[in-house]
């Protein structure tokens, strides 16, 4: 039985090798189909893995309350020059005092600000924060130290990596003084490079930590204040608008992960009482994670459908080739029938040939698919070498992750396609009249 099977496979390979070019082109369809499945799924998995990592960085036990600009409501709002909105320090107190199961709540205020030193400037995000901010965002200190309890209200500043590079291209910034607005601040530390994090709230931008500058939140409140004016438009006259925001974000950490959803609801209810407008958003990273999971599943279904279509097309190509082969080898079929081949033998022969064709295409496709990592890295490097800015940052961070199920599925489908699209040509061959077939030129 086994010997016979190998004999049939051997015959199939030999017959296919008679028309190498044709067999190769037919298998190419399946090759592309299978490697597409694996490549696409690997890319999709890579993207969603990164998204999940980023969401996890936000903390699965956290509830993030962010200030957001309310929708432009009445005309009165639009005409007023200073907009007051967002989370209040009172909100922070209310959350801390009213919700018992929170481990800690960390307030934060951030605003765009220009730092200066001599003729060098840096457009940074000035972050007023507490000591916990470092740990909360998994930042690391490169040199100097982080903000401490004793710094509250002091004029000290910690620079992020890129900010430090802009202001101090050659020197060590620690101990130096820089201009923040109209006052000197002493640089006490510098953080390490940190890749961008997931977007939270409604914003699509991911949080980039590399152009930050950190000062104690108390200092920010006392010396910079809540109101920030900025110049808009051109022309003459008073073209300034202002934003009056007390807090940009409150990060609430609960004790146990199960309490996250409930706590988020309580916070929302609590805030609703004191805010007429929706000028805040409650973000639950855990919920984002679940959403990402759903998106990933949908994405995978889509990819499989696309790849399935390409395999279907490949299969039709295979069937076409096999039908041509049957016509071409009618004489051979007649001879084999005369020499004792039953119909089932002929079906077996042509079906084996088709499956060998698709399986070899599929196998090659799987091998090519499995090499997605190195190939993708190579392409990335090559493109970056030619033009450094050609690829968006997301591509640089993307690392394809091969999913085992996609490998098994694509291999299975390629075999299935072989059987499915091989049956008709094989049956056609088997049901030829042997007398006619022998006479066929």
């Amino acid at each position, binding site marked *: 039985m086994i010997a016979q099977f190998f004999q049939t496979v051997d015959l199939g390979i030999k017959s296919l090798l008679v028309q190498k070019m044709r067999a190769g082109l037919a298998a190419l369809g399946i090759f592309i189909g299978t490697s597409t499945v694996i490549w696409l799924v690997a890319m999709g998995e890579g993207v969603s893995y990164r998204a999940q990592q980023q969401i996890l960085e936000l903390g699965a036990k956290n509830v993030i309350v962010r200030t957001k600009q309310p929708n432009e409501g009445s005309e009165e709002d639009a005409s007023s020059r200073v907009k007051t909105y967002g989370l209040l320090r009172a909100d922070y107190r209310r959350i801390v005092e009213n919700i018992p199961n929170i481990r800690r709540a960390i307030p934060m205020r951030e605003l765009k600000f220009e730092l200066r030193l001599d003729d060098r400037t840096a457009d940074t995000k000035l972050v007023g924060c507490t000591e916990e901010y470092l740990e909360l965002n998994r930042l690391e200190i490169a040199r100097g130290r982080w903000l401490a309890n004793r710094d509250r209200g002091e004029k000290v500043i910690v620079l992020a990596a890129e900010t430090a590079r802009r202001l101090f291209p050659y020197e060590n910034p620690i101990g130096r003084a820089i201009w923040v607005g109209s006052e000197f601040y002493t640089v006490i530390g510098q953080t390490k490079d940190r890749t961008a994090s997931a977007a939270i709230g409604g914003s699509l931008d991911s949080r980039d930590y590399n152009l930050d500058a950190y000062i104690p939140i108390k200092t920010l409140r006392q010396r910079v204040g809540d109101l920030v004016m900025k110049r808009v438009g051109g022309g003459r006259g008073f073209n300034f608008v202002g934003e009056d925001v007390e807090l940009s974000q409150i990060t609430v950490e609960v004790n146990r992960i199960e309490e996250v959803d409930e706590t988020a609801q309580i916070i929302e209810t609590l805030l609703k009482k004191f805010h007429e407008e929706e000028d805040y958003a409650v973000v639950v990273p855990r919920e984002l994670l679940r959403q990402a999971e759903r998106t990933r599943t949908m994405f995978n279904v889509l990819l499989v459908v696309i790849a399935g279509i390409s395999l279907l097309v490949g299969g039709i190509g295979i069937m076409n080739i096999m039908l041509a082969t049957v016509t071409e080898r009618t004489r051979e079929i007649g001879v084999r029938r005369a*020499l004792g*081949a039953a119909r089932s033998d002929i079906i077996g022969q042509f079906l084996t040939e088709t499956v060998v064709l698709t399986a070899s295409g599929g196998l090659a496709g799987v091998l090519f698919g499995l090499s997605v990592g190195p190939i993708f890295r190579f392409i990335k490097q090559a493109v970056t070498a030619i033009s450094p800015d050609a690829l968006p940052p997301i591509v640089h961070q993307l690392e394809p992750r091969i999913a085992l199920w996609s490998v098994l599925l694509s291999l299975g489908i390629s075999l299935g396609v072989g059987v499915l699209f091989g049956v008709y040509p094989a049956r056609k061959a088997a049901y030829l009249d042997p007398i006619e077939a022998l006479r066929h030129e």
Partner: protein
Amino acid sequence: MDQYAFRVENLHRTYYMKGETVHALRGVSFDVRNGEYIAIMGPSGSGKSTLLNVLGCLDRPTQGKYLLAGQDVAQINDYQLSRIRGQRIGFVFQSYNLLQQLNVVENIKVPLQYQGLIGRDANAKCRELAELVGLGSRLYHRPTELSGGQQQRVAIARSLVNDPYFVLADEATGNLDSKTTEEVLDLFESLNQNGKTIVMITHEDEVAERAKRVIRLRDGMIESDELNR
């Protein structure tokens, strides 16, 4: 074993083509004993090809009996016919009909494969037969690398590999020049001398002359059935 290789009784074969009825065979009866060498002759349209198809189990007679070693195979199904072709009949065709993708030994082996006979014994037997027909030095050549006469020798070796009840040769020398025709006919003769039953379908007198018995067909019936010499 039966002393007859096969017997046919009152064979009829009728075709229906485009509303027209064609009586290709109208009652053909004859016996062939083991070890006989017969030639079946007849002009085109005499029913020669139809008889060949029936004898070769490629076609079923409309009516009549076809006893192969005592078993009536006139009305059996396609699968059984295939098995009988593979086990009891050796075909030799006018245009050799070797499989291009296989070498000499593999070509000879084809009928055995369909009976599940593969392995060392089968290979040894195929090599032996190749040597018997004088191709011992070309065991692994492809058909395209052989001359017409050599290809036909391979085909003859292939027809013998399943130890058939008889070898059915259809215009076996039709594509060969006179010299190779002689050689191939010599081969048939020596096979016959070693006890093989041979049925030769031909329209050439020189070929028929070499047989021991000649059956002539005309209009689907036997015109004459006589021994040579």
